[in-house]
């Protein structure tokens, strides 16, 4: 159904360029995906330094193992989101585990996080769930038909009302309302249970 943001051809080409060790390709991949990686990591871990570290680890993985991406299984963006999700959740679990081992005394100083130390297991799982929803939402936004995404971007990020959105897109106001509603309906399915789509390639 969806027109993808990155055409599969670009994805395959990028994979080949990374595989043959082209540093310029790594830079381009960073320019395209760093904000995705960083924001997903930030949602999971809730702090800037940890998100930076995840970003470093994710791009190192992309650079060292581009062959683990399978273009047949989905867009490069989805694979990178999946790698990010895995790395970030692992880091979150490690952090919580260290906290439990060290006990509440001094753990906050050591880790420098803002999280509530008494949160425990349940809090961790709800964070992981929130991160999964965020990852699914990102996937949905980037795989929904471009006209729907454009309408959402205008209305949300550029704060245009639906009449201005209609004018910007050159469609009727009816159509603008329809796109905004349909776009949000698609996005709302991110809250439905289930693994983020296309996550098989994350290994």
């Amino acid at each position: 159904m969806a027109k993808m943001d990155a055409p599969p051809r670009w994805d395959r080409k990028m994979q080949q360029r990374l595989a043959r060790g082209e540093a310029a390709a790594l830079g381009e991949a960073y320019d395209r995906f760093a904000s995705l990686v960083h924001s997903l990591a930030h949602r999971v871990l809730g702090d800037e330094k940890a998100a930076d570290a995840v970003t470093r680890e994710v791009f190192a993985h992309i650079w060292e193992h581009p062959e683990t991406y399978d273009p047949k299984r989905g867009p490069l963006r989805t694979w990178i989101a999946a790698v990010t999700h895995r790395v970030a959740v692992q880091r979150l679990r490690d952090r919580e585990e260290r906290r439990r081992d060290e006990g509440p005394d001094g753990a906050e100083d050591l880790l420098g996080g803002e999280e509530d130390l008494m949160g425990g297991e349940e809090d961790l799982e709800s964070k992981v769930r929130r991160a999964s929803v965020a990852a699914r939402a990102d996937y949905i936004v980037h795989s929904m038909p471009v006209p729907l995404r454009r309408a959402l971007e205008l209305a949300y990020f550029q704060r245009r009302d639906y009449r201005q959105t209609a004018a910007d897109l050159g469609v009727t106001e009816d159509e603008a309302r329809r796109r905004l509603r349909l776009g949000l309906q698609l996005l709302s399915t991110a809250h439905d249970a289930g693994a983020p789509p296309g996550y098989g390639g994350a290994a």
Partner: protein
Amino acid sequence: MSGAEEFRVEFGEPRERRIPTPRASVEDGGRPLPDPAGRGEDVSVPLVLPHDVLKSLLGAWALAACSAAETDAVEHHLGDCGACADEARRLREAVGLLHQPETLDLDPALRTRVLDACLDRRPPRIPVPEWAAPYDAETARLDALLQDFGDAEWHAPVRLRWFEDDAQTTRRTTVAGVIAHLLAVDGVIATALGLDDPLGHAPGAAGPSVRTEAYWRSTPFPQTRAVHAPWREQTHALVRTVSFTGGSARGLTVPYGGFELPLHDAMLDRAFGCWVHAEDIADAVDYPYRPPAPRHLNKMIDLAVRLLPGALAARRRSGLSTPPRTIRHLTPAGHPGRTLRLEIEGPAGGNWLIPLDSPSATPSTDWEVAHVALDSVEFCHLAAGHLLPEEAAAGQLGDKEAIRDVLYATASLSRM
């Protein structure tokens, strides 16, 4: 659905209660449009709309993208219609998923750290040449600055400044116009490398300002954010291409119209231009912007210093400077001649000896007649024509005439 029926029973068909609106439209079906502020009506009576219209407004409502009167009408309806209330709640939650404030302030310095870490772990087989690294870094920094610009920022006015015939010259444009300027001028390298010229069929060997004016004329006025993607694509294409041709491109020169630069100097020159104009843009929208990494800044300063003897000669030719009083003849090639020591301060700095009498003379400490000390960023601002020679806070020692000449020659390196 019964909610909608009730509305009809109570208020009749809405099309009979048509309300004039300040905006044009709704050719489609003659539906009423709300008076946004509820002017001319009792505000306590919500706008009445049929159920299917209210339902169609739920997305716009959740995004706060309808008029005040429509918002009231929807919210009034949600109290009566369970199905719409359920959907409204779901859509409101979905809006929360669009929120990505973290992407807006990704630290530009993170790029270098991440890429360096990657390249340490797996050395590249096709590296980005060292002389292209400043261009790669500066274009990425500017791109990061542009990332969250809205229309207001893209259309913010910018005054381009440079130095011509010993006076500051300016040209008005906008943020989008500056990006168009960078796209057009970077095109000299694209063309030299055999890539597409963003100008299409440009007049052969046109210089930066001719190219820029031609590009501005060839695109609808005013420039818009539409120029962003082609600019970024070209910057990526340049870095990609010089990575492949880097080794074999020795001897490749880039014509600038009137003069030419070797490819690696042209890439440095464009990195410098990118930084200078990124500062113009940052100033225009009141954002902070830092100077390039010291090792990149050092290379840009070195390029300017290498161009200085030629610029001094050009000033002599055009009668802007007087030949030295003590030595009336020019120094023969390869011989030591009068020398100025340029000391650039800061982590990007260093010491450079500049031959004053001829581009081909050999600078020598024995012939040092003057010593100038300048901060690295200030020197760059002078070379960009953003700082006037008489305003440069230079530490000066020795021949005043020679110092004046060098400062003016530095400013003369600037162009649009």
